[in-house]
């Protein structure tokens, strides 16, 4: 280990985000090191053996391992340095960059870099974070853990499964377990609509005649040592179990697909402000957090539904991290002029949360509606000062205007705001979403 080396960019995580960021930073002329906790690069894609990845980025339907392989090949062809099976235990910010303390089999290592890219992905919400009564027997797994057991280790989580939560991983595991001979008693969702992509409901649940119970939750788990049954309850519009609606389902495992949360322990330790709506760092269009030199991308920023956009945000972060490191190396970091992005209307969140008007980089904005807008909606983007309290007027002052046929919270939308348009902003940028057919 070369202790005195100062890398231009250190990337934390070798999943799709980390690899794309590292490749982009390398191509921008930076010296780059990737630190990965696991044995092999590829992140969660290693266990996502189903296809449907890469339709946007490659115009091909790839499996997770195939998508990862392209990033790994790109990294290998550039001779990128990957420090695997290494855990970052501490990061400190100094005058000219960051000092990292890492642990691996060879002991403790100190690493230094000018720019830091957080590509740490997300974690699953567990049974401790959703309110389920009853016993705590073996056989309760998160969907991602069950996926790792089946796809990486060749182990079945049980013989009869109940799945709580209709996120994409839960839907995909319903199909995967069925194909491996497990009886899937049903997929149950507390909300009145499915959380995952519509096509996954078709190809993972309907295709196999698996029961799908909406407005239904698991209210109790039964079993002394192993799960023996779960109690299902219908819920009211405030998601509270309806008395007298309980029924029992025999099963020996309960799979939870109840949400993903960006992983930001290191960001928090550095004082990086998070967005309560995304639970990830607030960033500008360069994926630059509010702490100079700290960049973030992929699912660490917000949980994406498509890996293609994880890669896109990571390439942006990698290029920007390289540019920042170049500036620091000559002692002249580029000063930022940040304007906040405000949302109006039924928006769950929008990323980025800031626009750097001093940057020549276009803003790729990702957003989700907070409810299903079946009749579509109009989005107007412009200077906040120009917006009336009631919403946007269709004026030449809007930077971007877009019409969406249908918006659903599980399906992320995207638009590009050219830097030439946002450069003149002197105050906040506003995203206003107005549902069609509503006053």
């Amino acid at each position, binding site marked *: 280990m070369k202790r005195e080396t100062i890398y231009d960019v250190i990337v934390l995580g070798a999943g799709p985000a980390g690899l794309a960021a590292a490749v982009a930073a390398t191509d921008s002329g930076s010296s780059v090191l990737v630190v990965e906790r696991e044995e092999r690069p590829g992140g969660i894609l290693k266990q996502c*053996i*189903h*296809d449907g990845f890469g339709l946007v980025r490659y115009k091909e*339907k790839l499996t997770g*391992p195939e998508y990862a392989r392209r990033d790994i090949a790109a990294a290998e062809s550039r001779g990128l340095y990957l420090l695997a099976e290494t855990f970052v235990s501490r990061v400190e910010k100094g005058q000219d960059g960051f000092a990292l303390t890492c642990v691996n089999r060879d002991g403790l290592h100190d690493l230094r870099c000018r720019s830091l890219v957080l590509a740490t992905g997300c974690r699953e919400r567990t049974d401790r974070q959703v309110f389920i009564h009853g016993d705590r027997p073996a056989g309760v797994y998160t969907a991602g853990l069950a996926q790792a057991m089946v*796809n990486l280790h*060749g182990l079945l989580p049980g013989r009869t499964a109940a799945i709580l939560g209709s996120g994409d991983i839960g839907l995909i595991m319903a199909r995967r377990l069925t194909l491996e001979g497990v009886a899937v008693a049903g997929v149950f969702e507390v909300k009145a609509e499915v959380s995952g*992509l*519509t096509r996954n409901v078709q190809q993972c649940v309907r295709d196999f005649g698996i029961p799908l119970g909406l407005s239904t939750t698991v209210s109790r788990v039964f079993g002394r040592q192993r799960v023996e049954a779960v109690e299902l309850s219908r819920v009211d519009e405030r998601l509270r179990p309806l008395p007298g609606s309980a029924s029992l389902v025999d099963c020996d495992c309960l799979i939870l697909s109840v949400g993903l949360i960006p992983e930001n322990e290191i960001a928090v330790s550095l004082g990086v402000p998070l967005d309560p709506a995304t639970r990830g760092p607030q960033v500008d269009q360069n994926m630059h957090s509010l702490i100079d030199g700290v960049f973030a991308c992929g699912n660490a920023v917000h949980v994406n539904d498509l890996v293609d956009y994880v890669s896109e945000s990571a390439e942006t972060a990698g290029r920007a991290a390289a540019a920042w490191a170049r500036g620091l190396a000559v002692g002249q970091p580029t000063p930022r002029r940040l304007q906040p992005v405000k949302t109006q209307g039924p928006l769950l969140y929008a990323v980025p949360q800031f626009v750097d008007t001093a940057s020549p980089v276009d803003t790729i904005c990702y957003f989700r509606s907070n409810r299903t807008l079946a009749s579509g909606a109009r989005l107007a983007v412009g200077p906040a000062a120009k917006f009336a309290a009631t919403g946007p007027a269709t004026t030449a002052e809007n930077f971007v205007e877009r019409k969406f046929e249908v918006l659903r919270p599980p399906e992320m939308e995207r638009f590009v705001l050219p830097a030439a348009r946002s450069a003149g902003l002197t105050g906040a940028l506003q995203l206003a979403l107005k549902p069609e057919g509503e006053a």
Partner: protein
Amino acid sequence: MSPVKQFTCIVCPRGCLLTVEITEPAADAVSGAPNYLDAVRVVGAACGRGVVYGRQEATAPLRSLTTTLRTSGADRPRLPVRSSADLPLERLLDACIALDTVVAQAPLRCGDVVMADLLGLGIDMLASDDLAVCPANGASHG
């Protein structure tokens, strides 16, 4: 009789709601043979791929198959595999049963044929990742 089927297109994440109407095929103006192609009408697709998918889905649904195989002499116990083409939806479970006994022998490259002519359908199962040899492990993984 004109049965109408509705389903969600699975070609891309957009997930268009397709309505497919199947009518009695009319005789082709030139050959006089029944024109089955025009007898299936697809509404709601945002692109041409959706129309093709809708036609197929209404008549004989096809699905890709991705699964894993046990390995031998490899650095890990499972190899992810994919079908070289889509197979009939109702054969997916049969295919998984047939693949249960197949063992992938390391080394393999992504794209290598691991099992040829699955169920006599003319479809191969391909490795969807590289599989490296584990020098310390000649035995088959469980």
